[in-house]
């Protein structure tokens, strides 16, 4: 299968290919110094490219088909994960996975949106676009966590809640609204992490809690840059401008006071060194969980309410 390469990854990849080509010949030839020069060159290039990514380039990285998904991270960070299925009312949505988990001895409930890797799995996972039963499964697991005093971790990675006939019939809006209401008062700590795409209400439906972290190359906003372009510019061609206008990156959301922190990714993005990305995620999760589980629940809930109450920018003075 051909490797998926983003436009700005290409020059880096070209040098890397040259290096590996030279390596395969280095048995016969003495070209060690030349390889070293190229290696330094590629590192410099990588650094300069990734230090000045545009917002749209970060969106592309967030969607990179080789990027680790929820179940990949679970396999890399959990001592154990016991997946649970179904909303006990309609069915089991495979665009959201969840279950009992353990990370470095800490027991918790872990929930995440799941995209598919190949054509078939993408279909099964509905491209990571949940239906109402997915949100209701998530809520069932959160309530379970509350009853057994387990903290909740959610991993956000969705292009949006599924816009389909059946989804509307079963109450896509109600299922998300209910989750927001219940997450606002769930009597256990909740940590939310955007690991890829955080598109609108579909992301927020499992995305409220006490701490919001974002991986370095992810986005979280009210709409995708493409849809924003199509509505405001009445054309699909302004996605770069829309991405800039929306200020949708991890850095932007920290600046807005919505996200609490950025989890670094290896240079080149999480898909380049997934294990390293998972280690960063694991460290950040442990830190957030240990900090939150120390707090008494009433205090935690008060802080959670205050946190959302504070979001908003407006004039509050009568105009003379």
């Amino acid at each position, binding site marked *: 299968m051909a490797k998926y390469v983003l436009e700005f990854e290409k020059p880096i990849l070209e040098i890397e290919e040259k290096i590996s080509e030279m390596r395969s010949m280095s048995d016969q030839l003495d070209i060690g110094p030349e390889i070293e020069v190229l290696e330094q060159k590629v590192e410099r290039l990588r650094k300069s490219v990734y230090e000045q990514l545009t917002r749209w380039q970060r969106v592309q990285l967030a969607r990179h088909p080789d990027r680790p998904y929820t179940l990949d991270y679970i396999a890399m960070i959990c001592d154990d994960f016991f997946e649970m299925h179904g909303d006990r009312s309609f069915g089991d949505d495979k665009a959201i996975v969840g279950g009992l988990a353990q990370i470095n001895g800490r027991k918790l409930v872990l929930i995440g949106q799941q995209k598919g890797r190949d054509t078939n799995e993408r279909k099964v996972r509905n491209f990571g676009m949940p239906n109402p039963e997915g949100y209701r499964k998530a809520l069932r697991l959160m309530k379970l966590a509350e009853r057994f005093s387990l903290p909740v971790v959610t991993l956000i990675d969705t292009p949006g809640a599924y816009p*389909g006939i059946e989804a*509307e019939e079963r109450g896509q809006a109600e299922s998300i609204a209910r989750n927001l209401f219940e997450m606002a008062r769930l009597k256990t700590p909740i940590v939310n992490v955007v690991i890829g795409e955080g598109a609108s209400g579909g992301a927020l*439906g499992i995305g409220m809690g006490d701490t919001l972290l974002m991986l370095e190359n992810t986005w979280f906003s009210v709409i995708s840059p493409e849809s924003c372009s199509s509505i*405001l*510019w009445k054309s699909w061609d302004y996605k770069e401008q*829309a991405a800039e206008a929306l200020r949708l990156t991890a850095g932007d959301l920290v600046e807005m006071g919505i996200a609490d922190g950025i989890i670094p990714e290896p240079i080149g993005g999480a898909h380049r060194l997934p294990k390293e990305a998972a280690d960063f995620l694991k460290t950040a999760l442990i830190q957030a969980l240990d900090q939150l589980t120390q707090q008494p629940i009433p205090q935690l809930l008060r802080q959670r309410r205050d946190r959302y109450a504070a*979001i908003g920018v407006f004039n509050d003075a009568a105009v003379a």
Partner: protein
Amino acid sequence: MPWWSRNRKNLDESQNQQREMPDGLWTKCPSCETVIYKSELEENLYTCPKCDHHFRIGSNHYIDLLTDPETFDETHAQLTSTDPLEFVDEDSYQVKLRKATKRTGLSDAMRTGLGQVEGKRVSLAIMDFSFIGGSMGSVVGEKFCRAVDDAIRERVPFICITASGGARMMEAAISLMQMAKTSTRLTLLADERIPYIVILTDPTTGGVTASYAMLGDVTLAEPRALIGFAGPRVIEQTIKRKLPEGFQRSEFQQEHGFVDHIVHRKELRKTLSRVLTLLPIPETAD
């Protein structure tokens, strides 16, 4: 003058919210094409006398329609939108706000106040679709929360009339988070055992539906209002086929279990009053 059109307190009379209506003496019903005289339409609360099509109306009309004369006190009217992200598409957000304010006479897409419905005091939040598509940004979120706070402070029921295309794009993640903010505030209302009554009107979609519009203790809807999460166009583009007749309308939502009653505009006040009587507020929060 029709019975529901009375002098109001604290209302700016220059507010012209009948933009869906042409300026002539008569108009054609978009549903059955009957020609209706403006005066007849007014008498009929902006519903078609032939087919009951409900024309979109603004907050002023709902205030007149629902509250007792001289009882409505507008609150938090000083809140106005800023442009925190300096959002620019073909126009800047600031220009859009100025235009919307000028065109509608409104300060944003929601108005709040305290008033009486057949003698029963309530806190009200009413959305205006004519202001940037009734979109929810910081001001709508904050006004909603303050109207909830007013209901809690006075221990009176909270009523919200929705009309919205969703969260306001020009405030990006900040408007998305208004879904979280408003839903969070409603948990306090629930803790206080104060009723929350939602009246869904045409159209209510997107982030407003996926937050406070779907969290009512009692949910009413005007007939044939479009109510949904995804817009019909987006769904059609995704599934690549035509949507069935009546899809996402009030009747569809009731059929699928998300609306208690579909109420003709002429019956709205009476119905609301009945619900307020039948759902008394307990003396204490617990």
